[in-house]
C-alpha cells in the first residue's frame, strides 16, 4: 500500500510540480512534447502567413495586367512566400514531429539536450519577426526570390539585411535541432533497439539531420558573404571587384538541393509509418527503404548544378549533373514501390491519415516525374524559370511535404491530445485539398510548357484562362485549410477519447504509452525484442 502510494505520489509530482503553468510553461519548457507542440503551432501560423502571401500572388495573376500590386511588391510576395514556407512552415513542422515522436518511438525519456531544444525553438519567433518585419523597412522585403541570388541580393535595401539575419538565426536553430536529434537517436535508444529496428520515421530524420548539419552552415556562409559584400567592402560575388556572382549560385544550390530532400525525407518517414498501420501489414522492404533514404541523401550532394543549366557549363558538366539527377529516381522509385507493395493484399481502411498518404504517393509521384523531365538538360533549358518549374516543385512540396504533414498530424493527434479527430471533417479536408491542389497547380504545367515565365506579375493574354483556373484553385485550397485548423482545435478541446492504440496496425513504441502520454515518457526504458 505504501509502495503504491509512493509510486502514485512520485508520478503526480513528476507530472505537475516540476514545470510552471501558463505562459511560463511554454517559454521555459524543456519537455520534448511541449517543444514539439510549439514547433507545430509556429509552423501552422507561418503556413497561414505564407499562404496569405500566396493568395496575394494568385490574386494578382487572376487576370492579365496589373491589378493590385506594384511589380516590385509582387517580387517581394514571391520571395517571402518561398522563404516563409521553406524555413518557417515546412522545416519547423517536421522538427515538431521529430520532437514529439522520436523520443517516444525510440523509448527515450526526452531529447538529449533538453535546454538546447528550448533554445532551438525560441530562436524561431524572433527570426520570423525579423523576416516579416522586412516588409516595413525602406525598400521593402527581400525581392530577389527565395534563392537570393547575387548580385540582386547584394544591392537591395535593408530588408535584405533583415532577411539575412533571419536566415542566420533559423540556420543556427536548425543546426542545434539536428545535433539534438542525431545525439538522441544515436545514444538514447531503448535496450534492444538496434539501428535496423528503428522505425522508418526515426531513420529518415537521422539522415535528414546529417544533411542539415552539412548544408545549413554552407547557406550561413553564403549569406554571410552576401552580408560582407553589402557592408564590409568584400567582393565575393561582385564581378567588378574580381568576385563571381555565379559562385553564389553554386554555393546556394550546394545547400539548396539537399534542402529539397531535407523537406521530403521526413515526409517519406511519416508515410512509411502511416501506410503499414492502415494496410495492417509490416512495411515491405524495410532495409531497402533505409538504404534508399541514405542513397537519396548522398546523391543530393552531387546534383546541385541541375538548377543552373542555363547559367552555362561544359557539356561534360551538363551530362554529369543530368545523369546524377536522373539516378535519384532509382531510390525514390524503390520507396514508391515499397509503399505500394506494403498496401498489396493488405486489409486496408481509408481513414484520413491513409487518404493523405495515398494522395501523397499519387501526386508526389507526378512531381517526381516532372522533376525527371526537368533533369534533362535540353528540356530544362527550355523550361527554366517557367511555370512548369513552379508546378513541379509545388507538386513535390505541397502534395509531398505538406500532405505528409497532414497525414502525420491526423495519424498522431489522437496520441498527442488523447482525443480522436473528427473523421468527417478530416475527409472533407483531404478531398477539398486534393481537388483544389490539382486545380491550382496542374494548369501551371501547361502555362510553363507554353512559355509563361515565373516571378512576373503580368502575362500575355493567351495565358489568361489557365491562370484564372489556378487562382480559383488557390483560394479554394487556402479556404480548405481552415477545416484543418477547425479539426485540430476541436481535437485539442475534446472529442471521443482516444485509445492507447487507436490504429489497429500501428506497432511502434509510442502506441504502448497511454493517450495522451505522460509528461515524461519512458522513464524506465522499454526493452525491444
Amino acid at each position, binding site marked *: 500500500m505504501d509502495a503504491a502510494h509512493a509510486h502514485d505520489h512520485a508520478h503526480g509530482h513528476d507530472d505537475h510540480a516540476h514545470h510552471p503553468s501558463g505562459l511560463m510553461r511554454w517559454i521555459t519548457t524543456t519537455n520534448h512534447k511541449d517543444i514539439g507542440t510549439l514547433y507545430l503551432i509556429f509552423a501552422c501560423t507561418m503556413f497561414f502567413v505564407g499562404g496569405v502571401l500566396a493568395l496575394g500572388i494568385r490574386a494578382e495573376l487572376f487576370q492579365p495586367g496589373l491589378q493590385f500590386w506594384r511589380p516590385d511588391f509582387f517580387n517581394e510576395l514571391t520571395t517571402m512566400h518561398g522563404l516563409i514556407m521553406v524555413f518557417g512552415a515546412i522545416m519547423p513542422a517536421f522538427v515538431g514531429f521529430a520532437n514529439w515522436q522520436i523520443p517516444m518511438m525510440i523509448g527515450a525519456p526526452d531529447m538529449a*539536450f533538453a535546454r538546447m531544444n528550448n533554445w532551438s525553438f525560441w530562436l524561431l519567433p524572433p527570426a520570423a519577426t525579423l523576416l516579416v518585419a522586412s516588409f516595413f523597412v525602406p525598400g521593402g522585403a527581400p525581392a530577389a526570390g527565395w534563392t537570393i541570388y547575387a548580385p540582386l541580393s547584394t544591392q537591395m535595401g535593408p530588408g535584405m539585411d533583415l532577411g539575412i539575419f533571419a536566415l542566420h538565426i533559423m540556420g543556427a536553430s536548425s*543546426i542545434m535541432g539536428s545535433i*539534438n536529434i*542525431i545525439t538522441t537517436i*544515436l*545514444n538514447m535508444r531503448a535496450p534492444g533497439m538496434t539501428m535496423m529496428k528503428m522505425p522508418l520515421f526515426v531513420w529518415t530524420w537521422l539522415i535528414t539531420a546529417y544533411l542539415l548539419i552539412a548544408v545549413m552552415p554552407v547557406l550561413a*556562409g553564403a549569406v*554571410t558573404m552576401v552580408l560582407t559584400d553589402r557592408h564590409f567592402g568584400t567582393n*565575393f560575388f561582385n564581378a567588378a571587384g574580381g568576385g563571381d556572382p555565379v559562385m553564389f549560385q553554386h554555393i546556394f544550390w550546394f545547400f539548396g538541393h539537399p534542402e529539397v530532400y531535407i523537406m521530403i525525407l521526413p515526409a517519406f518517414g511519416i508515410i512509411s509509418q502511416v501506410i503499414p498501420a492502415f494496410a495492417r501489414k509490416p512495411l515491405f522492404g524495410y532495409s531497402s527503404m533505409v538504404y534508399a533514404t541514405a542513397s537519396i541523401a548522398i546523391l543530393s550532394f552531387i546534383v546541385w548544378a541541375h538548377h543552373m543549366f542555363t547559367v552555362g557549363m561544359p557539356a561534360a558538366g551538363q551530362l554529369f549533373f543530368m545523369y546524377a539527377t536522373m539516378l535519384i529516381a532509382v531510390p525514390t522509385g524503390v520507396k514508391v514501390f515499397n509503399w505500394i507493395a506494403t498496401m498489396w493484399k493488405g486489409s486496408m481502411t481509408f481513414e484520413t491519415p491513409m487518404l493523405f498518404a495515398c494522395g501523397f504517393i499519387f501526386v508526389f509521384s507526378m512531381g517526381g516525374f516532372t522533376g525527371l523531365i526537368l533533369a534533362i538538360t535540353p528540356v530544362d533549358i527550355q523550361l527554366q524559370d517557367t511555370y512548369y518549374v513552379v508546378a513541379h516543385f509545388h507538386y513535390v512540396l505541397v502534395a509531398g511535404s505538406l500532405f505528409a504533414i497532414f497525414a502525420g498530424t491526423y495519424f498522431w493527434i489522437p496520441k498527442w491530445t488523447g482525443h480522436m479527430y473528427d473523421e468527417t471533417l478530416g475527409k472533407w479536408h483531404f478531398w477539398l485539398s486534393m481537388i483544389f491542389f490539382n486545380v491550382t497547380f496542374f494548369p501551371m504545367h501547361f502555362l510553363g510548357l507554353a512559355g509563361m515565365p515565373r516571378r512576373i506579375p503580368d502575362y500575355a493574354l493567351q495565358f489568361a484562362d489557365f491562370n484564372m483556373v489556378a487562382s480559383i484553385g488557390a483560394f479554394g485550397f487556402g479556404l480548405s485549410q481552415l477545416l484543418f485548423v477547425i479539426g485540430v482545435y476541436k481535437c485539442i478541446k475534446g472529442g471521443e477519447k482516444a485509445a492507447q492504440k487507436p490504429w489497429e496496425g500501428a506497432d511502434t513504441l509510442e502506441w504502448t504509452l497511454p493517450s495522451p502520454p505522460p509528461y515524461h515518457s519512458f522513464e524506465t526504458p522499454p526493452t525491444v525484442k
Partner: protein
Amino acid sequence: MEMQSANLKTALILATIALAFFIGVIVRHWLW
C-alpha cells in the same frame, strides 16, 4: 553521467563539422 558525456562527445563532433563547413566555405572563397 556516462550517457551525458557520450551525448556531449557526439554533439561536439557534430558542432565541429558544422563550424568547419561554415568557416570552410568562406575561407575557401576568400583565399581562392
